[in-house]
């Protein structure tokens, strides 16, 4: 699938790297498909590029790399909505907020949304942003190096 993007140029994304969010991401209901793009350095980061909007992209991280104690309990409802039958099929990503718009971003200017992680069924590539309402996790947890 050819995806045009402001940041990455024209991308040829294989279908198995396109994630589908039937409910959208909260606040972005009109973009329900995102290309999953590995970070160049092979770290725990992924870019999420909207298939529908070339200007819309997010940076995300596998949270356990920075927050080893991070835990999320999926509700049966979430599992049903995603068709998730095995925990090992779940790809967990947290969206990152980059607080300064230049190349000199430092660690404490990048925060992870631990309260509203994204969970993707890697077998079907259907995902959902879930809200861990009673977890006490913050929406802006600084990445600690």
């Amino acid at each position, binding site marked *: 699938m050819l995806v045009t993007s*402001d*940041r*990455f140029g024209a991308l040829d994304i294989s279908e198995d790297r396109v994630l589908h969010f039937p*409910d959208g*991401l*909260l*606040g*972005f209901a009109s973009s329900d498909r995102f290309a999953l793009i590995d*970070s*160049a*350095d092979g*770290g*725990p*980061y992924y*870019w999420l590029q909207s298939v529908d909007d070339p*200007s*819309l*992209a*997010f*940076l995300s991280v596998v949270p356990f*790399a*920075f927050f080893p104690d991070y835990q999320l309990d999926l509700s*049966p*409802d979430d599992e*049903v*909505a995603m068709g998730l039958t095995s925990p090992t099929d779940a790809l967990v990503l947290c*969206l*990152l*907020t*980059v607080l300064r*718009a*230049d*190349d*000199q*971003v*430092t*660690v404490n200017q*990048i925060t992870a*949304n631990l*309260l*509203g992680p994204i969970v993707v069924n890697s077998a079907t590539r259907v995902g*959902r*942003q879930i*809200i861990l*309402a009673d977890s006490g996790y913050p*929406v*802006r947890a600084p*990445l*600690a*190096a």
Partner: protein
Amino acid sequence: VLVLTRRANQSIMIGADVVITVLEVRGDQVRIGIKAPRTVAVHREEVFAEIQQENRDAALRPGVGPDIALPKPPGSVN
């Protein structure tokens, strides 16, 4: 806005699948039961709004792209 008056143990139907029931009224607090299909996400409005706002802030600004320096996770080898 549709305004309905309900007493404890009375319900409201939203469509054919969603049932909102007033369970208990005590002072300025109301306990509400929600029965909805599993595919319908139900959230407290303030938490929903917080995530929505953070998503908007997380949408990358122009100029933030693949060339930004990202911190290495603790314990990783350079």
